[in-house]
């Protein structure tokens, strides 16, 4: 369990935040940032470790959100069960999209475009289908009880999303230290070489996509329980696809803490920009996103965590950029 120590340390430190008496506004900010982090953690499993850059993780987020909402509202399913089924729905979409794309051998930008297309098809379908509420969207009834997975206190919601993030962190860390993780990274680095060494690259990518879909879907499920509303633009819109890939890229692709760090930094800067302009310049946070992305790609292509490890190894005079495999 030694390898999970950093994860526990970070999660426990973050869990203490509501006890410091921070305002609801701050808690709300953190919850939204953690939703982005969770979506990004899903993306990071497939994109960061597996090198399969998806532009359509909204497909998973939206499916999680809609399954959670529609099952509750239309079929009277218990919120907890709906939440779990939402995660399963994301995994299923991952299996279908992955099965279709990987089996037909789509790589690189083709893969990215196909995922984008899937998300768009789902968005357009959801905007007209009666079951999703079409253009009006679906509203989950306010019912502040534990049974309905709704809480009076923001702090409880915060702990809930933090717990989800913690699970995703643990999953990521365990993947990193497993044979599956080694093979997944091998696929990212050189697919042909991986195949020659006995790696079933299609199966490895497919498994990564299922895990990735499940994690990002969990972010969507939580989104519905927190905001109690979903429509096609929120569920399957490009905003969440961008959020899911931006947070790990800025924080550090293929690192355990990359998405979490990236989400806090990006969201923090966006919020800061909004505060400075006093709401006078709507959309400025998006400009900040863009600028941060350009700067990161320019100066730290391995993200903030990558830049940090590189700096540290330069100071310590060691050549290793990648964490050594001996633990």
């Amino acid at each position, binding site marked *: 369990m030694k390898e999970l120590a950093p994860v526990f340390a970070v999660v426990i430190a973050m869990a203490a935040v509501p006890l410091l008496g921070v305002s609801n506004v701050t808690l709300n900010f953190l919850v939204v940032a953690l939703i982005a982090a969770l979506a990004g953690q899903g993306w990071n499993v497939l994109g960061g470790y597996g090198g399969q850059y998806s532009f359509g993780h909204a497909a998973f987020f939206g499916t999680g959100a809609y399954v959670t909402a529609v099952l509750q509202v239309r079929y009277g399913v218990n919120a907890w069960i709906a939440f779990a089924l939402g995660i399963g729905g994301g995994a299923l979409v991952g299996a279908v999209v992955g099965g279709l794309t990987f089996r037909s051998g789509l790589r690189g930008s083709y893969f990215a475009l196909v995922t984008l297309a899937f998300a768009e098809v789902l968005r357009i379908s959801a905007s007209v289908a009666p079951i999703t509420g079409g253009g009006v969207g679906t509203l989950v009834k306010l019912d502040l009880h534990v049974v309905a997975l709704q809480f009076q206190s923001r702090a409880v919601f915060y702990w809930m999303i933090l717990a989800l993030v913690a699970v995703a962190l643990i999953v990521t860390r365990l993947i990193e230290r497993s*044979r599956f993780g080694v093979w997944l990274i091998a696929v990212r680095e050189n697919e042909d070489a991986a195949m*020659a060494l006995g790696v*079933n690259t299609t199966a490895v990518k497919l498994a990564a996509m299922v895990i990735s879909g499940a994690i990002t879907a969990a972010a969507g499920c939580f989104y519905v329980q927190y905001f109690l509303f979903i429509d096609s633009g929120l569920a399957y819109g490009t905003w969440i696809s961008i959020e899911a890939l931006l947070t790990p890229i800025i924080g550090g692709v293929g690192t355990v803490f990359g998405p979490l760090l990236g989400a806090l930094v990006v969201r923090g800067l966006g919020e800061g920009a909004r505060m400075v302009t006093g709401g006078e310049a709507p959309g400025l946070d998006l400009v900040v996103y863009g600028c941060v992305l350009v700067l990161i790609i320019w100066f730290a292509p391995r993200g903030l965590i990558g830049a940090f490890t590189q700096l540290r190894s330069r100071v310590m005079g060691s050549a290793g950029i990648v964490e050594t495999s001996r633990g």
Partner: protein
Amino acid sequence: MAEPVLAIERVSRRFGGLLAVNDVSLAARDGSITALIGPNGAGKTTLFALISGFLKPNSGTIRYHGADVTNEPPHRMARYGIARTFQIAQPFAGLTVHENILVGAHLRHPARRAAIAAAEQVGHELGLGARLDRPANTLTVAERKRLELAKALATQPTLLLLDEVLAGLNPSEIRDIVPVIRALCRRGITIVMIEHVMQAVMRLAEHVFVLAEGRIIAEGSPAQIAADPGVVEAYLGRGAAEKLGGARAN
């Protein structure tokens, strides 16, 4: 005679109008070193890709220990015990040497600890002990070739396909690596090697197949091949053997 480890029977592969491998049959005896030589574009690497499952033949059969493995995918070939190296070394560039070998070691060792130990041992065996923690993209050409070998070896193959592991090495580096290959053979690994460095072929190979324009034009011991006028012509052009006045090609 015992079943050959590898038996290729009348295999052909076509790319559009080009018949890259044309009705090729060859066999590699258990525990032997077989060399595959021939001019550039003869189809040697294509033949390796067919054996290792990266390409599917249009016709013919590939047998491994007697079993038909003709249309199996590469990862399953590796599981059966067929490992290949690439002509242009294909390291996992962003990973360390140790992590590179670990990918191969995991094939037979699911547990991380065992795989790490096995990878380390293979690394030492191939003289990469001092380089284990270096990123693979900082290695010299000779070290990359060794890494290529180490990765393949970590999968514990019984048949090793070496695609020009000596190309690009200087004479002293070749002298260093030839005993390594011979030691692998002594451990019971059957080796089929594509090689242009004739001096090494002569020293290592038991049996040589010559491929030209997709077809086997000669086979035999290294000495027989060197004396074959057909082989000389394949390399130097029609009539070359005659013009050389029977001089030995070496």
